[in-house]
Structure formats: structure tokens, C-alpha cells
């Protein structure tokens, strides 16, 4: 079980790294997907090792996938808006508001 969890942790960290460093907004979205997946791996692992009979983990994972899809849709719509407004989707564009 440890290895699955470790895998998830590393994947999560990779996603984290991506969110922190990607300059492209869509890149950030992708990294977010990685993080969601890491969580999914966790859920499924626990489902297998801790409480298999209730299938809660799998259930949770399914819902996460659905939610991630919804989130991606909305996120991409916003990305489109950004593209329209700035003609580019780099994070450098949108930092007018600060301090």
C-alpha cells in the first residue's frame, strides 16, 4: 500500500510543481488534473486496502472525475475569455490587480 501512496504523493508533488511554475494557463490546468489523479489513486488504494466492501473510495473517485471534468470545462471557458481579452494565455498577462 505504501508504494501506491508514495506514487500518489510524488504525482501530487509533480502537479504541485506544475501549478506553481507553468507559465501557460492551460499548463496549470493540466497540472491540476495531475493532482486530482493523485488523490484518486489514494482513494482507490484505500478502497482496496482499508475498506473494500463499502466501495466508498471508488465512488469518491468517480465523483472526483466528474467534478474535475466540470471544473475543466469552466476553467477552459475562462481561459478562452483570457485569450480574447489579452490575445495570450500566459499568467504574466493577468496581474493588474495586486497589493
Amino acid at each position, binding site marked *: 500500500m505504501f508504494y501506491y501512496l508514495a506514487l500518489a504523493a510524488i504525482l501530487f508533488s509533480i502537479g504541485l510543481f506544475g*501549478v506553481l511554475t507553468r507559465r501557460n494557463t492551460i499548463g496549470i490546468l493540466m497540472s491540476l488534473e495531475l493532482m486530482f489523479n493523485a488523490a484518486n489513486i489514494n482513494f482507490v488504494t484505500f478502497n482496496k486496502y482499508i475498506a473494500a466492501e463499502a466501495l466508498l473510495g471508488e465512488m469518491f473517485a468517480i465523483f472526483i472525475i466528474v467534478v474535475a471534468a466540470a471544473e475543466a470545462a469552466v476553467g477552459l471557458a475562462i481561459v478562452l475569455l483570457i485569450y480574447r481579452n489579452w490575445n495570450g494565455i500566459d499568467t504574466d498577462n*493577468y496581474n*493588474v490587480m*495586486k497589493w
Partner: protein
Amino acid sequence: MTKYSFLICLIPALSFVMIVFFLRWKEKLSAGWSIASILISWVMSIIVLIETISRNGQPYEASYRFINLPGINIEIGILVDALTAIMLVVVTTVGACVEIYSVGYMRGDSLFSRFFAYLSLFLFSMLGLVLANNFFMIFIFWELVGLTSYLLIGFWFEKKSAANACKKAFITTRIGDLGFLVGLFLIAFYCGTFNYGDVFAKLSAGVMPLGVLTATAIFVFSGAVGKSAQFPLHVWLPDAMEGPTPVSALIHAATMVAAGVYLVARAMPMFIGTGNGAMVVAIIGLITSLLAATIALTQNDIKRVLAYSTVSQLGYMIMALGLYGYDTYHGSPSVGYFAGTFHLMNHAFFKGLLFLAAGSVIHGIGTNDIREMGGLYPKMKTTAITFMIASLSISGIFPFSGFWSKDEIVASTLHHPVFLILTLTIAFMTAFYMWRLCFMTFTGKPRDLDRFNHAHESPRVMTWPLAFLAFLAVVSGWVGMPWLHHGFSSFVYAGAHAPEHHAPSYALMIISLCVALSGIGLAYLMYYKKSISPEAIGQRFRLLYKLSFNKFYFDEIYQVAIINPIMSIARFMWSFDVVIIDGAVNGTAWLTILLSDIKQWFDVWIIDGAVNGSGWVVRQIGDGLRFIQTGVAQSYALTISALVVLFGLIKFELVYLTWSWPIMTIIFVMGVTALILVSRVVVTRQELNSDISKEDKV
């Protein structure tokens, strides 16, 4: 009548109220009302005196509770004994004379009514002071006479000197009052009452340790020092001559300044209880007397000479009282008490007369400076004659009143050789400067013809009071002739610590008479005959002359040593308040916002320094925290994750890892530093980028 003696002081009060609220606009009515009321008081005073004499000076007392406080008896009441009765008569007599005189002197003044109102108020306060039966009440009236003195000195307030003088008088006397107040606290604390009789009874029962008693006595005496212009608080009295001359006569010669002497006399049982305290009193009196007499030798302002003379004479009385206290403490009461009070009465008459006459001179010639006078005798005979009578009296020439009382004062110093010699010296100086004044004013050639030609005798309303007072200046001393067994002497003692009645000492009389005559003689030679040149003597004793002429530089010393420091402390405190205390507050609350200006920023940073630092730090925290707000979503995510990690690390370490706390701290600090650095880099980058993009758009 004694029962209603409180009316003596209330009648002038009523007159004050009437004038202020109703009669202000009618000058004659005001003056008339005021004079009528003081005359009523005068008559009543005389009746009271007679009644008291017929009671053999036994005190009459009546009072009511002023306020109910546990453990302390504060009351308002009257006490009529010999001293009171005498003082009542003295005050009302001089008061009446001065009021009548003022009708002439103040004629045409735009504030004529107000003057009488103030005089009435003063008389109320002074009579109240005299009538008081306890220390609390005497203090109240003590302050009130100070107030009226303030108002009257500053009566011609458009004059800057008058405005200054009144303030100086008030504040200087208040410094003395401060001590008085502390004395009162001590009395209250140890005795629980202010009533004279009760206090003295308790004191003699020994409720106060000797040291405390001495301190109390000196504190109380400091009130007298202020009021009676004793060294070192004598500086206000000469300046107080800026007031109208009748005021000087009434307040600053006859009555109010004598209140200090009255207080010492009144509190005599307290001084009797403490020899050292009494000695202090005597020494202060002596110093004052000597000092003032010395200064009086060289002054050229007629009123100032008289003022210093007053100071000197008051010092005399106080010295006598002090010596009485000292001697009595040591078991051999002298005649000091009698001498002091006796001289107080005589002095009131002749000094009042001197001032009024001087006022008449000033009124006639229009100046105070004796160097501009001279040869006035023919022009103003009444004035001149009365002035000279008074001068004879103060010099102590037989049989004028001053002779009798001064003689008793000299007698009271008999056991103290130093005092004796200096007393005689002062007597000599007194005679000298008084007659210097007489000769320079009334004899010789007029020095200022212009003024001389305009000089004229004063109207009758002014000269009659002079004449009346002159009469008193001659005869008032007779009541205390040493040959009288039941005269003034036995009356004032009224049984308390009376000295052995002893035969009159003729030798002493003759000595003091000789001293006085030699003083007059010297003045005669110097200023009438001009056979001795004053300048030459002035040259010979130049240092002394300069010291005397400049009043021993007291004003200057006080200015440098006290007033300037207080003012600078006050200003410093103010800046302290504004810069430091307020600065701290402001800093902390960010109320100094205009920091965008770098220069100002530096001012605040450097001047307010550490104190404002607190505020600065808070502001910087705000700015620093604001700075993290880079506007880049990823930086926010970074902050989140970095802090998640850091929280995790800290908690983690708590249980398991062998890393020690220092390492954790270092990591933490490093992480935070890195975070801030990075965000700064990001910020600058973003800043540049946005600038560039803006340019692009343009």
C-alpha cells in the same frame, strides 16, 4: 454687637455685589454706597473693639460646619478677640480713609465704579481674614485678598508693567501659599481640625512630633512670607506699586501685607511650641528688614522707597514675633508679641498716611521720580506736613506713634545682641531714607520746573483723610506707652504667655531716639545742606551701592534660576508631548500617513526614532504583507503550498524526526526568506512587464 460682627465683613461684600450688578453705571452712587458701607463697618468695628475691651479681650466665637467630612472639622466661623478687634478697627479706619481719598484721586478714571467695587471686595476679604476663627477660613480669605490685590495692582491693565506686576504679585504670593497649604494639610492630618483653639490645644497636648511641628510652623510661616513680602518672596511688593496709590496705601502698606504678620501673631502658640521654627521666623524677618532697608537707601521712585520701607518694617514685626516665640519656647517671654502687633497697628496708620501723601504728591506733580521733584513744600503744605509727621513717626521720634512701638521691638531683641545691633542699624537706615525722601521732595530747589509749575495741592477730599491719619500717626502709639498698665500690652496678651511687666527702659528709649535722630541728621546733611555728597559715598561703596540700587539682583536671579527653567521645562515637556508621547501614539495608529515624501519620511524616521519605530514596524508589516500580494495567482498558490509544507515540517518534527529545533528554525527562516525574495523578484518582473506592455499599447 460682637454677635453680629460678621456683618462687618459682609457689608462691603454687599456693596461689591451692588456696584457690580446695579450701580456700575452711576459713579457717584457707587462711591457713595461703598464709602457708606465701609463707614458702617468702621463704626461697628469700634463698637466691637469697645465691647472686647470691656470683656478684657476674652474671645467670642461662633461657627457652622462648612462641610461634613469624617475625621476633619472644616467650618466657617468668626472669632473676636483683642487681636481681631484691633485689626478690625485698623482695617476699617485705613479703608475708610483710602476710600474717601480715592474719590479725589481716581476722579475722571473711566473705571471709577469698578475701583470702588474692588476696594469693597478687598475690604470684605481682609475683614473676613481677620474675623476667621480657623485656618481653613483664613486661607480662603487669604487667597481672596490675593485676588483683589491682583485685580487692583492690575487696575490700569493697559500698562504693560501693571499687567506684569499683578501677575507677579499673585504668583509669588501663591508660592508662599503653597507652603501654607501644606502646613494646613499637616494640621489637618495631625489635629483633624482647623479651629485655632482646638488646633493649639491639640498642639500643646503634643499630637505633633517636634520636627513635624517645626515643619508645620515653617510651612504656615511661608504663607506669611509670601503675603508680607518677606525674603525671599519680597520681590513682588515693589512691583505692586504699579497699582493706583490708594491701593498701595490700603493693601500694600497698611492691611494685606500685614496679614502675614497677623497670621504669625495668630498662630503664635504654634511657634511657641517650636523654638527653631520661631528662630527661623525671626531670622527671616531680620534679613528681610535689613535687605529692604538697604535697598530703600538708593531708590529714586517715591513709591518704591515706601514699598521697601514697608517690607523692612514688616520684617521688623515678624522678627519681633519670632523672637517672642523663641524666647517663650525657652521660658522667658519677651515683649515681642506686643511689639509686633503694636507696630502693626501703628505702621498701618503711618504707612497708609505716607502712601496717601505720596499719592497726593504724585497726583499734584505727575511723576513718581523724586529726582524730578523738590521744593514742593510751598505748593502743597498739607501734604508735606502730613508726610513729615508720618516720617517722624516711622523714624521713631518721640512722641510719635512709631517711637513707642519701635522702642518695644528694640526691647524685644535685648537678649539677642546681633539682632539688637542690626535692629538699631535698620532703625538708623529707616530714618535716613525717609528723610532723604522728605528733603528731596519737599525742600530745595525744584528740579523740574515744568512739573513744578503745574504742581498743586490736592482737593480736600484727599487732604482730610491725610489729616485724620496724621492725627492717628501721632496718637495711636500712646495706647501702648510703657507706663500704661492696662494699655495695649495687657489687652493683646489676654492672659497668654504675657511677659513680666517691667519698668520702661529709658536708656533704650534714648539710644533708639539717638539712632533715629542721627539718621535724620545724616539725611539733612546730605540732601538739605548738601554738605556731604551722596555721589561720593556711592562711589566709595560702589559695590554695595550697585547691589542696593539693583535690589540685589533678586528679579534677575529669579528670572534666570526659576522662571526661565520652568518655562523651558514647560516648552520641553510640550515638545516631548508632541514628539514622543504623541508620536508614539500616532506612529502606532498610522496617523502620520504622508510618508510618500521621502524627506519627510526621513525626518520622521530619524527624529521620532525609536518611539515612532513601533508604528513604523507595524506599517512595514502591513507593507510587507501587502507586498506578498503580487497579483499572480501562482504566487498565491506558492504561498499556500509553501506554508503547508512549513506547517507540516514543524508539526512533523515535533514527533519524529531527529532534527533539532534550531535546524527547523533555520529551514523555516530560509523558506520564508526565499519566499519573500522570490516574490520580490516576481514583483519586479511583473512590474517591468506591465510597464512594457503598457508601452506596447501606447
